[in-house]
């Protein structure tokens, strides 16, 4: 297992370098000059030229790449053009805001989805199943911002138990500030994981070992949650891992709707003003997180299904 993890980490290095190279050139292919975007429509030619010189944008692209790549290898993501501070510093300020949102959103979404998915599978074809399948379809088809707006209308505007602006302080507790965006993310993720849990459970419930467990007189609770759900976890873990990985990039919409200051919003702000170092840094951090989460997901496969570990040893 250790060798497997080590090999995955080694494979991750060229992936991350590849992402850096791709992002470096792609952001420069997008129309829009950072100097013009930052200085505005009234900027003079002289101001624009001086800005380019100050930030090294007047150098040939190969030279710019060489400098950026050398710095990247040293762990230096450069200076943000719009924040006037080191990119690394800005990103690590925002990252916890997105991490807590992604973690709690996926955690609560998954817990609810496991319960709902098992319930739907057990009552296959009956009204609870139809109701939960309809809920899952609705949740998957509604855009996140739409769910977010409804959460705001109900919990902030009508019930007034959470603030519209999700930054804590000024009489707003940490958990109040998290409630709206976490609920929105959990609802969206819950729908996808409920469907996956349902279909995975339906497959497992028809297996011989489930019949054997029941014939041995085990309680239905143990049969369902220990034997069936335990064996249905592989596809669920895949979906949860994928959801967690994409949550970092996908938090953009939630962070905008709830005025939350995370890494997703940072990336969008960076793109809007063509802040090349910030776009590169943010994308790299998201890529590293995705790679890490994928490795963790692989490790969890081994934990939930011993056959995978046996296969590895062979």
């Amino acid at each position, binding site marked *: 297992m250790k060798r497997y993890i080590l090999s995955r980490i080694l494979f991750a290095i060229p992936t991350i370098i590849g992402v850096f190279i791709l992002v470096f050139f792609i952001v420069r292919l997008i129309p829009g000059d950072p100097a*013009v975007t930052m200085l505005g429509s*009234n900027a003079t030619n002289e101001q624009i030229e001086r800005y380019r010189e100050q930030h090294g944008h007047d150098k040939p692209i190969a030279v710019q790449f060489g400098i950026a790549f050398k710095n990247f290898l040293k762990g230096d993501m450069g200076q943000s053009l719009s924040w006037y*501070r080191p990119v690394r510093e800005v990103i690590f300020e925002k990252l916890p805001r997105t991490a807590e949102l992604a*973690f709690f959103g996926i955690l609560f979404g998954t817990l609810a989805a496991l319960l709902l998915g098992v319930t739907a599978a057990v009552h296959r074809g009956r009204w609870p199943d139809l109701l939960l399948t309809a809920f899952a379809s609705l949740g998957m088809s509604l855009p996140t911002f739409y769910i977010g707006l409804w959460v705001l209308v109900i919990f902030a505007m009508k019930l007034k138990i959470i603030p519209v*602006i999700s930054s804590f302080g000024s009489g707003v507790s940490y958990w109040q500030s998290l409630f709206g965006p976490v609920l929105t993310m959990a609802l969206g993720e819950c729908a996808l994981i409920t469907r996956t849990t349902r279909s995975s459970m339906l497959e497992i419930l028809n297996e011989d070992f489930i019949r054997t467990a029941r014939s041995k007189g085990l309680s239905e609770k143990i049969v369902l949650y220990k034997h069936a759900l335990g064996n249905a976890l592989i596809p669920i873990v895949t979906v949860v891992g994928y959801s967690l990985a994409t949550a970092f990039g996908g938090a953009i919409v939630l962070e905008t709707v709830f*005025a939350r*200051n995370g890494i997703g919003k940072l990336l969008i702000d960076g793109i*809007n003003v063509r802040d090349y170092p910030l776009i590169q840094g943010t994308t790299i951090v998201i890529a590293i997180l995705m790679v890490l989460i994928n490795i963790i997901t692989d490790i*969890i496969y081994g934990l939930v299904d011993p056959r995978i570990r046996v296969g590895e040893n062979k």
Partner: protein
Amino acid sequence: MLWILVLLASMVILAACGGGAPQTGSDAEPPEHGEEKVITLGRSWEEKSWDPAALTMPDDIYLAPMIYENLVELNIDGSLSPELAEDWEVSEDGLTYTFNLRQGVKWHHDYGEFTSEDVKFSIERHGDPDVGSINLENIHLDNIESIDTPDDYTVVIKLKSIDVDFMTRLALYYGNMVSKAAYEDKGIDGMKLFPVGTGAYQYDKGTPGTKTEVVRFNDWWGEAAGNVDRIIAHIITDTNTMYSALENGEIDTFDSYDKDKTKEFISKGFTSDSVPYRQLLYVGLNMQLEPFDNPKVREAFFHAIDPDVFIKDLYYETETAAGSYIPAESKYGLKDHFQPSYDPEKAKQLLAEAGYADGLEVTLWSINDAISPAPATITQSQLQDAGFKCEMQLVEAGVFFDKVREGEAGMWLLYNDTPAIADHTMTRYTSVNYPGNNWCGIMDKEYDALVDAGMKASTEEEKAAKFADAQKRLMSLNVLYPVATYHFDHISNSRLTGHIICGDGIVRYHNAVLE
């Protein structure tokens, strides 16, 4: 699996305990406002840097005018009032300005007293390569011969040539006074993150991208009649969230760019102040590109637009027709020069004469933001009625600026603001600026000569006359169609009164009263 959950949970708990994004400023704890009178502003943007040398345009600036002060203040009518300079004299030759500074003015955060050395430092630092000021041209530093400080409260500035708008330059954001002592203490990067001024409010703390807090400066030299102790500016980029936050009482005020929303909030009991911003909606044509290189096509375009539709249907008659490309609120703007003649049949006839009897295919470029698509759609519709086959391209701002600047867009619609000093707006359309920020590709010697004469004028009257002639010449070329004036609305909770709307779209709260 458990250990992974424990690991992730620890991370989140740490984030929660650590408060996540660290705050910059004097206090990292969540605010405990107690009995303080606090107003909360909803803002969709913020000052990314607090250094006046790095501020790019008036749109970036909102809290900075409460923190920083200038030698003189720009009033809403364009006139100037004393601020940190009590009075000043101009020599007969118009080249030497002597300022008598206000005594006893204190810098925020105990950085001592404001003196003439600070004035010299604040202006000269624009020329320091390490500072990298992007406002070097705006303050006309290369026209300053010398800055002398005979004593702590006197500053003598000598110019190389007459600049009739020199005093106005000193009143704008790049003329903000900064503390030399604070600069020596905090360095260039420190200045960008922690402003030290002399204004009615001093910077307290902030989390970039989330919120900034300023508190009343008790040692301010001026008289503050208001009762607002603390101002918190929240950054909210989603407009729906902004509206909900105002209705929910989480913010007290925000700037509305949507006239429908302004109407709605007024009907709900909120107050609205129109903020003059020397802004107008215009459509530009690039006369170097086909088909707009043909004067008949440009003339046809000018007969195709009906500004009344915009003013009545889009702005509910809160705006008026624009008299020139330079708004009338600007110092050199012409009020009633441009008299549009809406005549779609004439437009069709002109297109036929230009060889486009079956219609002319054109593309209208604009920005896909909250305020541009509606007027772009009206323009497209009017062009269709006048024989143009108009395609609309709504793109992101960065792409838009690239297209027009590089001469790849023949026609565009944009809201444009003219700085308090119209020099830049006038000079950008001179021949030397094409290609570049002469987006219209105007290569007209007569216009160039008039602008040059205006820039070299020795009196305001002479400059106004030259700039008036230049504007008339510019309008005669049929490349810039000023559709209507444009103001934004400062919407406030009715419990907030007494705030002052100043020049340059700035709102001041030192006299504001919060009930």
